[in-house]
């Protein structure tokens, strides 16, 4: 069992948890993920490592309550325990001094882009960051991103904070302004955002890295449920990723595969909410 040492509410639906996992903390690096299972009847879901502290023996996760499992996880408090916390899994981000890079984080994935931007900064890169969310309420860590960015652009879909724009707009402008000067782009967020970031950077020929969060069970290459189609063949997100060259990904297939269990997810959420209501009554 893995104890929740600390919990923070980043927005109504976005939670941060610091988990006691000394063995995983020894090895965790930016870009890797953890498989979490809430309780004995729980499903296994991948969550990308948001931070780690080797001395304290902790790994930090950030998640948005979008399905039954994350809603359930969100109800746990400091002192509660998780049934499974396996990792770190997948390959870490390839950190090098590339020159000037753009780091894009959308929604909950601001928590994922942060440690990557930090590591890239430490490696000597000039960091231009773009963070975005649907609205002000869902934004977080602007201050943290500021500390690791040479330039930071904040936007919301509805204009309730920062610039009213999708992240692809400033991304395109930056690529135009700094034509030929951007060595790499990291774009991490919902699949649809990553798809459009890939589309935005492609004409500029700038290598773009995305972190895919697909359906998976074991996280070790055993089930193959997480497979994605790249231009050079099918890959498993869990062992070959989770980071891939965005320009190689078959995004439409990826989006379709993410929808496969939509009906069951809906059913599970309804059942969970019903159960919660009964609990309150």
């Amino acid at each position: 069992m893995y104890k929740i040492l600390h919990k923070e509410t980043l927005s109504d639906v976005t939670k941060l948890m610091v988990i006691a996992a000394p063995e995983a903390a020894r090895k965790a690096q930016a870009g890797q993920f953890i498989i979490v299972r809430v309780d004995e009847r729980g499903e296994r879901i991948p969550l990308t490592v948001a931070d780690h502290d080797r001395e304290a023996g902790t790994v930090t996760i950030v998640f948005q309550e979008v399905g039954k499992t994350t809603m359930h996880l969100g109800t746990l408090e400091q002192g509660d325990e998780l049934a499974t916390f396996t990792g770190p899994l997948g390959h870490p981000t390839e950190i090098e001094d590339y020159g000037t890079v753009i780091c894009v984080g959308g929604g909950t994935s601001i928590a994922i882009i942060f440690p990557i931007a930090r590591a890239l900064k430490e490696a000597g890169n000039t960091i231009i960051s773009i963070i975005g969310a649907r609205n002000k309420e869902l934004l977080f860590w602007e201050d943290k991103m500021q500390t690791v960015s040479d330039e930071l652009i904040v936007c919301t879909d509805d204009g309730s904070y920062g610039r009213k724009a999708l992240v692809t707009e400033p991304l395109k402008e930056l690529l135009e302004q700094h034509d030929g000067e951007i060595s790499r782009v990291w774009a991490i967020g919902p699949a649809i955002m990553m798809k459009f970031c890939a589309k935005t950077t492609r004409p500029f020929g700038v290598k773009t890295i995305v972190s895919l969060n697909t359906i998976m069970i074991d996280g070790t290459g055993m089930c193959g449920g997480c497979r994605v189609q790249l231009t050079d063949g099918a890959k498993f997100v869990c062992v070959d990723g989770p980071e891939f060259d965005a320009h190689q990904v078959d995004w439409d297939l990826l989006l379709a595969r993410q929808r496969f269990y939509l009906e069951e997810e809906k059913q599970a959420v309804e059942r969970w909410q019903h159960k919660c209501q009964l609990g309150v009554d």
Partner: protein
Amino acid sequence: MAELSNRERLQIPRQTMPTQEPLARRTNFDEVALGFTLELAQQEAERCLQCAKPHCVEGCPVGVLIPEFILALRQGDIDGAVRAMKEKNNLPAICGRVCPQETQCEAKCVLAKKGEPVAIGRLERFVGDYELERHVCPLERTTPTGKQVAVVGSGPAGLTCAVDLGRLGHEVMIFESLHKPGGVLVYGIPEFRLPKRVVNGEIDYAAECLGIKMHPDAVIGRLYTIDELLNEQEFDAVFLGTGAGLPSFLRIPGINYNAVLSANEFLTRVNLMKGYLFPEYDTPVKVGQRVAVIGAGNVAMDSARCSLRLQALHAQETGEVHIVYRRSPVEVPARAEEVHHAEEEGVIFDFLTNPVEIYGDESDNVCGMRCIRMELGEPDESGRRRPIPIEGSEFDMDVDMVIMALGTRPNPLVFNEAGGLERTKWGTVVADEETGRATKARVWAGGDVVTGAATVISAMGAGKRAAADIDRFLRGEINPW
């Protein structure tokens, strides 16, 4: 009962195991074979001729004392039968259910020459189940040696190795990547063939008796490398029993559509995650109305039979489940009993049929599969007749789910930073067959990770041989490197 003559013993028919009726069982996940009653077991035990030179034992990869346990059983000394069994076999309730006895001990039984062999497997299961309930013969440790062994993987090979090492007085820690121990016994083999209470019961009991420590959620190769286990974590030896967990997919167009999945994924959802109990359990599992399972091994049979059951649970009317196999019935690699059970339950077999393309609809869901008819040519390197496509024989199958059960390979994750550990071009570990010694000092390996996908009992045999060799090494009797 008075002592019978051999002539009288030969008169006794082989006792049939009570089973759930095919029509009933295809709608539930309860165990199919219900097990012998004491009366049936003793009646069957009377059939054994107690050969002076028992060939059955030669057929057993772990050398179970077969005549001894059967004799005790028919004399009414069931505790004695348990003791005789556990001399060599630490997990009899599991072996009694999943060993292919028809090609091992029972194939060598002297009665098999003229008629039907003694039902050794069913008797083994009876004894195993008896012990699981009563715990009459706890495993015992000899004097502790103070030596520590890391066993990687808690499937049949790792478990057997761990238990034998524990009995020999060594400290054992089992590292398991999933959240539950058992490996293929929990994620692969379905509840109706091997109830998980049996697996958990056997493992918990053995681990408790011998003080074996279990470390779930530990992906070796990521959390610790083999070198770290040997050096930083100070284990004296490492046994690799990580199995063959990597699925294979056909190289045809359309394999990434929704509802094309590996048997590993399908079975893990059903078995380990208990997807058939969704939404009581959180992990969903879908089943098509018309399922095609590609392949004809035991894993294919398990997938097909799980599909039938899910169809019954999910819908009022049941659908169709096909086994699509490119060779003929003669080459089917699954156990005869599994094929028989699948047929009884209504699985449709399409032999000499090979998929060439999977079709998807506008939502990228499977909506059909193009196949080609095959004929058999000359034997290939496997000794089986090579299937050859019949030109112009393509046809479309109406399916909405495709499960690939095409064999598995070892997972390379465990080999991260394991310098000096040689592997073959198939990704299996190079290890001595008799001792399990790998090419890297203080590392042994056994089971599917060495042989490629094989049987539970052959993995147990390998785990046992490796444990004996590790013991000799830890006692300083040998130093092979």
